[in-house]
């Protein structure tokens, strides 16, 4: 009897909580989001860049096939189930039935086929493949079953299917064919909102998708993304109520926002890392003792404090503590030890002098100067050159004029997509790494696809092999923050810098 009463009471409390939450989700209003960079377009074959403003601004229009539950299991969104062949070369996804694009077109397997055929024909396919894996072809097995056929076994595809990976976001096929290049300005997805107006460089306005299958989840009438350059103007805008939400990677902005009781700040330890890479093919950085000495000479906590207001943690591999692929800090990464650095340099026995390039953005330039100072204390002379970000920077890196360069590495959804830059035969091997142990560890990681545990062990072995050779210095994991006024409700922490802003609502 007592148990019965307990159950009834629990049930009533649960129902009350659910009802209260449901009532709390007020309908209507416009959510205004401040973007740091302007939108360059919705067609990823024309604008493949994975910049976080763009991805967040695209998200209300599109949906993923699956998402991930708290337990890491797949949660159906547009897909209902997924199955892979034993060799992980073919992945079969069953799609949900009855789903429509915002223009009324049916969402089915042929839509995915058309979507990927467009991408594969595009000039950006080489770039996009870096995000969706080595897809050879996409085939419609029946009206609602689609098969992704890979060039090689690719266990990482499970993670790609269940994370917000934007090249997977399909457009309505008939509409795509009709508008051609204009798809870049006229996206049509299955998401809860549709594009109402886009004034390039100014704002993007979304309104409710009338064909959306779950109208209850469309809390907002409109979502407006406004371009507001600069951290301070955007923070001031949130504080004054001119906008509701801003997204940032800047530590100082996040710290300032946290001090304001009228703001809510959701931070994500994204993983990925800022790094310094070395050209390991020529003296003095072709000697592992010098590279190790450079690592030991730097106090990375001081670097993090100076360059990003302590927002984040020093990194020891590409994945952060929030990721299931994180190696737990056990990669053997050299800690700050000036004595050891001096000893290694003494063993090297020659003066160390090299050229380093950085970008004129705060995190990079402060970090570069700090490293230069730490290294100077060891008697290492570094000539620092500043090159504007973007194409010019990467040309400078690739020109061979520099021995070291600062670079940010985004967190991928799976180790299968990360860290290949140190494989000696990789075209993107900018560090000119040629270490048999690193190659062997990476090959082993690629071949291990039995289960996640085995894969993680192999991946961490690979990271340890890289750290042992030190063609790269890890600086800190990239953090990300969503800053919003208190009237914005239902905000969820971002995942890989992607925030489901369209799921929020505004308190009256």
């Amino acid at each position, binding site marked *: 009897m007592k148990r019965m009463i307990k159950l009834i009471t629990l049930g009533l409390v649960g129902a009350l909580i659910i009802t209260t939450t449901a009532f709390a989700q007020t309908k209507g209003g416009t959510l205004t989001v401040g973007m740091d960079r302007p939108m360059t377009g919705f067609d990823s074959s024309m604008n493949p*860049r994975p910049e976080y403003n763009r991805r967040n601004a695209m998200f209300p229009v599109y949906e993923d096939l699956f998402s991930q539950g708290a337990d890491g299991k797949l949660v159906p969104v547009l897909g209902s189930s997924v199955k892979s062949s034993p060799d992980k070369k073919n992945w079969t996804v069953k799609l949900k039935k009855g789903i429509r694009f915002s223009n009324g077109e049916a969402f089915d397997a042929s839509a995915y086929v058309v979507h990927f055929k467009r991408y594969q024909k595009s000039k950006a396919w080489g*770039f996009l493949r*870096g995000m969706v894996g080595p897809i050879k072809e996409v085939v419609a097995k029946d009206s609602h079953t689609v098969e992704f056929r890979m060039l090689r076994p690719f266990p990482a595809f499970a993670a790609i299917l269940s994370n917000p990976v934007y090249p997977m976001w399909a457009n309505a096929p008939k509409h795509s064919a009709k508008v051609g290049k204009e798809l870049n*300005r006229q996206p049509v997805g299955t998401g809860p909102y549709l594009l109402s107006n886009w004034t390039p*460089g100014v704002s993007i306005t979304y309104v409710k998708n009338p064909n959306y299958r779950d109208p209850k989840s469309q809390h907002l009438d409109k979502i407006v993304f406004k*371009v507001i350059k*600069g951290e301070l*103007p955007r923070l001031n805008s949130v504080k004054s109520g*001119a906008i509701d939400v801003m997204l940032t990677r800047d530590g100082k902005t996040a710290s300032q926002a946290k001090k304001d009781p009228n703001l809510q700040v959701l931070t994500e330890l994204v993983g990925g890392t800022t790094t310094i890479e070395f050209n390991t093919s020529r003296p003095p950085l072709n000697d592992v003792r010098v590279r190790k000495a450079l690592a030991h000479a730097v106090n990375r906590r001081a670097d993090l404090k100076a360059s990003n207001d302590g927002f984040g943690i020093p990194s020891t591999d590409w994945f952060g503590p929030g990721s299931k692929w994180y190696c737990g800090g056990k990669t053997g990464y050299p800690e700050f030890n000036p004595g050891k650095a001096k000893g290694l340099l003494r063993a090297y026995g020659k003066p160390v002098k090299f050229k380093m390039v950085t970008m004129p953005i705060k995190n990079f330039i402060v970090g570069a100067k700090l490293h230069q100072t730490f290294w100077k204390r060891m008697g290492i002379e570094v000539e620092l050159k500043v090159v504007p970000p973007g194409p010019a920077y990467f040309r400078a890196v690739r020109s061979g004029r520099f021995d070291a360069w600062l670079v940010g590495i985004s967190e991928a959804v799976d180790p299968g997509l990360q860290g290949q830059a140190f494989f000696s035969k990789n075209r993107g091997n900018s560090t000119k790494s040629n270490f048999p142990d690193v190659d062997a560890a990476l090959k082993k990681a690629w071949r291990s696809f039995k289960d996640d545990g085995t894969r993680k062990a192999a991946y961490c072995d690979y990271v340890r092999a890289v750290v042992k050779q030190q063609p790269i210095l890890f600086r800190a994991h990239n953090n990300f923050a969503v800053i919003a006024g208190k009237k914005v409700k239902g905000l969820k922490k971002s995942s890989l810098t992607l925030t489901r802003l369209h799921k929020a609502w505004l308190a009256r």
Partner: protein
Amino acid sequence: MLYYIRRKLLHLIPITFAVTALSFFFIDLLPGDVADAIAGVGTDNAVVDEAVVQAIREDLGLDRPILNRYFSWLGGAFTGELGKSYQTGQSVSDAIGLRLPVTLQLLVMAQCMAVLFAVPAGILAAYRAGKATDKFVTTLAFAFLAAPSFIIAIILAFLFAVILNWFPATGYVPFSEDLIGNLRSFFLPALALALIEWPILSRVLRNDLIETLQEDFILLAKAKGLSYGYILLRHALRPSSFTLITIVGIQLGNLISGAVIVESIFALPGIGTLLVASIHAREILMVQGIIVIMAVAYVVINLVVDILYGALDPRIRQ
């Protein structure tokens, strides 16, 4: 006068030709181009095949010789076709058409505010020349003159938007949607520009007024027993405002550069922000379009100033 206007307008042709050619060639000298940006070169871990970038370049016609590209653009410009953004596909004319009214409103409001501050301050300083009031106005003027516009803009935004919440920190409300909202969204940016603008105008007016006040006709007015205020406003102000008008005209052009920063801080979608974004993205056609508009604006503003001279002083018309 018509001959004069025609001659001034004819100047537009070589000016436009020179500025567009120079900007076209200078932008081309910068490393990298829009094809890199489209291909994703420069993004975190992007490994982009050079062949992909080259293919995009060919697709956009960026592989043609620069002279060929320039004259092809010039031909289009003469027929009113300024091209399209490589990245977004938006027409250059549309982009400029959308943003020009914003910048114009900002500049006009800023200049009006600056004149509103400068004229009383200049008159007051001239009237009390050498005295404490003059020294105070001079010090204040130099303080604002020394402050960069972005600092003033940030302080204004913090004070009036974040602390007092009187005006929006950022954003733009079109005139057609809400007049009050529009004026509120422009107030702080215009004030930021006006505060760095008024000191020059005020100093120029003060100096000219002091000189005018020593003229014989002022002495005559005084002898007639007219009040000092009347003499200042009715007799001295008009002949003392030639330099002021010239400076207002010239500064209106110069304000465009200040507007670039202020527009960014207050997120006003004007020509300034468009120009900066286009330079970053190597959107050469967009940059060209804006430069043509700016060149025309400079010439037209100077023409208007010259016409105003004539209106103020009939001797110039003759």
